[in-house]
């Protein structure tokens, strides 16, 4: 009777779940043979799955990258959530609600992917709320007018798509699969934003002014979303070799500028960069110097609304504590009743 439970146990070699293995033994982390085999698999574009052997540095880098990405989705709900009650029509309100709900979903896909690497959800949330973990600098800028919602969808989600599309082929299976789902949904976000910009750009003089003002404020922070220039991005080479990153920051930034400028032209908006110029030879735009001082200041938590963002997150977590506790107690009671 080979499938009797206790008998079957002998055939079970290894438990496999995406849940943490609390007693996971530390393997021969940097065994050169394992490392070589791992590098060869990644170089051959094979996917690495949660229980496969991986170098500790790969696990650490990925955990940081995926959890930062998840945090960005979660914090990203705040600037837009700010406008749900003030959306100018029921149609816009329903769309914005759906978009913000998507961002929550994206955060959840990504947290799940990160958890498969051995860090608990609780640890990640803790790291965000204590300020230890980073999230995209873009969400530390305020959303001052309705036009900002258009600009965010168009530019911020546009830049995010540019970053995320190559990650659908990242070497870590759970991350790549999460990115496939995210990318499918992001396209709606960008198009709804651009549609808002079209409406404003074709509106009254005041609406046009709002559109240009939002564009002026979001353009440079959007370019910063691709991260520091390649010469100041020391981990890029390693991450590219590991297929955690598939294109460099500057390559992606250039692509973004090249596709976005014509979209701005269509709206008759002026790119807030006097140095922007088509370069026939390279087949792309030359653009002005990014203010990296500002970028690093925002990374350090000095963004205009960084404190408000973290306060909103912590308040939401604390205000929701009773719901989490009630659900847990309810389940305990139910279990006890069942046992009785």
């Amino acid at each position, binding site marked *: 009777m080979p499938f009797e439970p206790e008998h079957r146990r002998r055939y079970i070699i290894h*438990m496999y*779940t995406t849940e943490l293995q*609390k007693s996971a033994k530390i393997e021969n982390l940097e065994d050169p043979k394992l490392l070589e085999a791992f590098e060869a698999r990644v170089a051959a574009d094979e996917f690495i799955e949660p*229980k496969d052997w991986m170098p500790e540095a790969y696990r650490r880098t990925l955990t940081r990258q995926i959890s930062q990405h998840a945090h960005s989705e979660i914090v990203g709900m705040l600037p837009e959530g700010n406008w749900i009650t003030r959306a100018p029509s029921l149609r816009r309100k329903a769309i914005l609600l759906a978009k913000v*709900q998507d961002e929550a979903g994206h955060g*959840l896909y990504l947290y799940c992917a990160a958890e498969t690497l051995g860090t608990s959800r*609780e640890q990640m949330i803790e790291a965000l709320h204590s300020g230890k973990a980073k999230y995209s600098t873009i969400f530390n800028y305020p959303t001052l007018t309705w036009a900002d919602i258009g600009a965010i969808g168009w530019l911020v989600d546009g830049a995010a798509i540019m970053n995320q599309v190559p990650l659908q082929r990242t070497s870590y299976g759970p991350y790549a699969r999460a990115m496939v789902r995210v990318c499918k*949904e992001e396209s709606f976000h960008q198009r709804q934003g651009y549609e808002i910009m079209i409406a404003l750009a074709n509106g009254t003089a005041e609406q046009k002014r709002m559109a240009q003002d939002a564009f002026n404020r979001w353009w440079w922070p959007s370019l910063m979303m691709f991260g520091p220039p390649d010469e100041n991005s020391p981990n890029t080479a390693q991450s590219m070799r590991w297929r955690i990153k598939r294109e460099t920051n500057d390559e992606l930034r250039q692509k973004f500028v090249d596709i976005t400028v014509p979209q701005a032209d269509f709206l008759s908006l002026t790119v807030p960069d006097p140095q922007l110029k088509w370069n026939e030879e390279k087949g792309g735009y030359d653009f002005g110097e990014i203010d990296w001082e500002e970028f690093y200041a925002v990374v350090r938590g000095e963004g205009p609304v960084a404190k408000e963002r973290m306060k909103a997150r912590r308040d939401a977590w604390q205000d929701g504590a009773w719901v989490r506790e009630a659900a*847990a107690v309810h389940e305990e009671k139910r279990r006890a009743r069942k046992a009785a």
Partner: protein
Amino acid sequence: MSSDWPLWEVFVRSKGGLSHRHVGSVHAPDAELALAHARDTYTRRLEGVSLWVVPSADIVASNPEQAGELFEPAQSKIYRHPTFYDIPDEVKHI
């Protein structure tokens, strides 16, 4: 020890006639809420007609380190495939 709710694996049947397929996971205190969270997280765009949630801790899987021993023997048994057999062209419907 984490105080996270237990983890559940989520499977979606995208339409009638197809198998359920793993799509990701959710945390939930019980099965009912796991289903509710799975619905909100993984089926916001008509992705499915049916959901399964399974406690992650209950899933038993083969060990990736043993994948060779488990699956490679099948590689040498090419006679298990119909193309292994030479049948003259004039013989039809086979």
